[in-house]
């Protein structure tokens, strides 16, 4: 069972060292993602869902630091632990095998570059070789070869042998001489326009040349998704991509994500606080509370018989017409000096004294159903 998972997060601990004190954001997160599946992560604000997703990409925002735990990535056959890798190696994976989509689309796009610049950046970073060869092919099979094209062909041959040769990099800096990059750029443009069209953009040419502030919410989000899918990653992480969008646009993006999963065969980690989206889109759900995963189960199993008291209370607190409102008493504990044992102990009406002393372990209760609660202990 171990080998299949694309990503295995084991007992991830992460702390933020701030002025007010040490915030224990992640306190032993356990999570595994299977290939070609949509895993939902649901939890209230401050439960650490976004921090976990960034950690999988190996990005830790200062002043945070990962204390211990393992994140094992199964990428093209090799098992690697992200946390042990040095920066260079992780960079190869980011954007290529694992990529990410964020919440406010316009805030996550650089306002001073066009859409084409930002998307082609990913292509140049990871698939440069492929595009040089493509440019070489198109140059070669041009009918009449003028002297310039022959000259270009010779450069491209040298270039494809050694993609980041110093000479080429130097040449591309000088204004007049860098025209030699045009065939390469044309290839990139074709790929970007094709990508935007596959994401249902009305007029990809104009969008490619426009700046982020000229795009509407839905279009900007599609651009971010295009950027993430440029090198068809094996895992696409979506951090609440539709929360800021209107309901009708949200439906369009959800539809798009479902279609992309089928087309690109990549698995998707979908993070949200909206249980409706979880029910619609995801196949398996992980429920997080105050820094650790309390329950992980298939979606129908979770909605039908939730095991962990928090999941049960969360599902009951969804306002349903006609029924009285039920809510969870108390507030989320502060993570600066969190309560010992299970962090849900104050608000849980099944709390036993063991819950106040020992932290419950993340154990497998049923086939593909994990829970971290003393009720289902030994």
């Amino acid at each position, binding site marked *: 069972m171990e080998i299949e998972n694309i990503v295995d997060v084991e007992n991830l601990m992460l702390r933020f060292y701030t002025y007010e004190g040490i915030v224990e954001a992640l306190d032993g997160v356990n999570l595994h993602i299977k290939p070609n599946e949509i895993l939902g992560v649901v939890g209230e604000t401050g439960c650490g869902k976004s921090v976990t997703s960034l950690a999988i990409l190996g990005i830790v925002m200062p002043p945070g630091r990962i204390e211990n735990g393992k994140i094992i990535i199964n990428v093209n056959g090799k098992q690697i632990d992200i946390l042990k890798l040095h920066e260079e190696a992780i960079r190869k994976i980011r954007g290529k095998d694992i990529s990410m989509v964020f919440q406010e689309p316009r805030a996550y796009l650089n306002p001073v570059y066009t859409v084409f610049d930002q998307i082609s950046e990913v292509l140049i970073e990871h698939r440069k070789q492929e595009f040089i060869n493509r440019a070489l092919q198109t140059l070669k099979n041009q009918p009449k070869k003028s002297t310039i094209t022959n000259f270009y062909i010779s450069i491209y041959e040298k270039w494809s042998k050694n993609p980041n040769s110093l000479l080429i990099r130097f040449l591309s800096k000088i204004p007049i001489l860098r025209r030699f990059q045009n065939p390469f750029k044309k290839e990139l443009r074709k790929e970007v326009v094709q990508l935007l069209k596959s994401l249902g953009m009305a007029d990809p040419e104009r969008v490619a040349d426009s700046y982020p502030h000229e795009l509407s919410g839905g279009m900007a989000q599609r651009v971010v998704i295009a950027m993430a899918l440029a090198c068809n990653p094996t895992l696409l992480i979506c951090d609440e991509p539709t929360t800021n969008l*209107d*309901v*009708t646009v949200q*439906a369009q993006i959800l539809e798009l994500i479902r279609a992309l999963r089928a087309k690109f065969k990549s698995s998707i980690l979908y993070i949200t*606080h909206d249980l*409706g989206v979880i029910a619609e889109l995801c196949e398996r759900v992980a429920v997080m509370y105050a820094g650790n995963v309390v329950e992980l189960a298939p979606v129908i199993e979770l909605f039908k018989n939730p095991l962990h008291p928090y999941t049960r209370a969360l599902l009951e*607190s969804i*306002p*349903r017409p006609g029924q009285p409102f039920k*809510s969870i008493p108390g507030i989320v504990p502060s993570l600066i000096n969190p309560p010992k044992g299970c962090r849900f102990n104050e608000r849980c009406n099944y709390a036993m004294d063991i819950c106040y002393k020992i932290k419950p372990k993340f154990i497998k209760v049923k086939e593909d159903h994990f829970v971290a609660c003393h009720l289902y202990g030994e």
Partner: protein
Amino acid sequence: MSEKILHIKSLKKYYPVLGGVFRRKIAEVKAVDNVSLEIRRGECFGVVGESGCGKTTLAKTTIRILEPTEGRIYFNVDEDIISKIEKLEQNLMSERDKKTKSTIEAELRKLYHQYDVAKFKGSKLHRLRREMQIVYQDPTTSLNPRMLVKDIVGEPLLIHRVVEKKKIPEKVLQILKKVGLGEQHLYRYPHEFSGGQRQRIAIARALVLQPKFVALDEPTSSVDVSVRAQLLELFQTLQKDMNLTYMFITHDLNVVECISNRVAVMYLGKIVELAETGKIFSEPLHPYTRALTESAPIPDPTRKKMRAPLKGEVPSPINPPAGCRFHPRCPLAIDICRSKEPILMDAGNNHFVACHLMTKSTK
């Protein structure tokens, strides 16, 4: 007192768009465009719509935080006075000769000055503040971070001098208890509270003057699901104890379905559908409402919905499409929709809808 507490008659609110070299007005954002509705006493009137549909502007214009461009608002006025004013307006239109026209105008102006909230100024507006209040969406920005809770909630009492200075702390404590806070919260600052508790302070501030009408501008959107239920429950109990009337603004259909008696659906500054909550969600008439109810995700995996979502996005309110504003995205659009603007008409037991197809032949 009359059964309807608030009458809004063809309310308009346009924001000028400044452009050109001399910052002249080159266009207008028609945030609220000719909206008319009535709200019954003690009712929770829901207003639903996507971003940019003008629901917040409608709320703020109704309680006169914003200056309406046009239209009448009658608050707490008897039916007969309103009908008298309307009668006068009719025959003002039909009247020909100048003299009677001017007498009618004079009388109308007197009546407006006395009853029409849209025209209130100075001390009349000041007194209106006691009866109409608002609760904002994000509690963190709607509370002054450098003021103690006792001052935040006590400020309205201080301004309107409803009660002597000595009695204010006691009144403040009374309202805090009503919203579920206690004595120990008096000497604390807003940043020491959780999101839900901060919203309770904002509610206490709005209700300390015992208003009759409260506009709730997405009060539960910036709060987590578990705390949301607590707030909705609080709104309902407060409505019963202090017989308040709510105008509940939200983009979350699930919430509006549970808490409101009647719902108005807005699109680009206009009301496209207005009916009892049950009717709107069971058999929506307007194509936009149908699209809205269908695309809202339901928290139940068994009822998976396979439907084609609506195309395109909300157009810019600066130059809305001609005719029915929804026609570019409407699957059932026919050529009359592109030319003539539908008006809000009753399609049977006061289920109002603004769509050519729906009102002519019932579905």
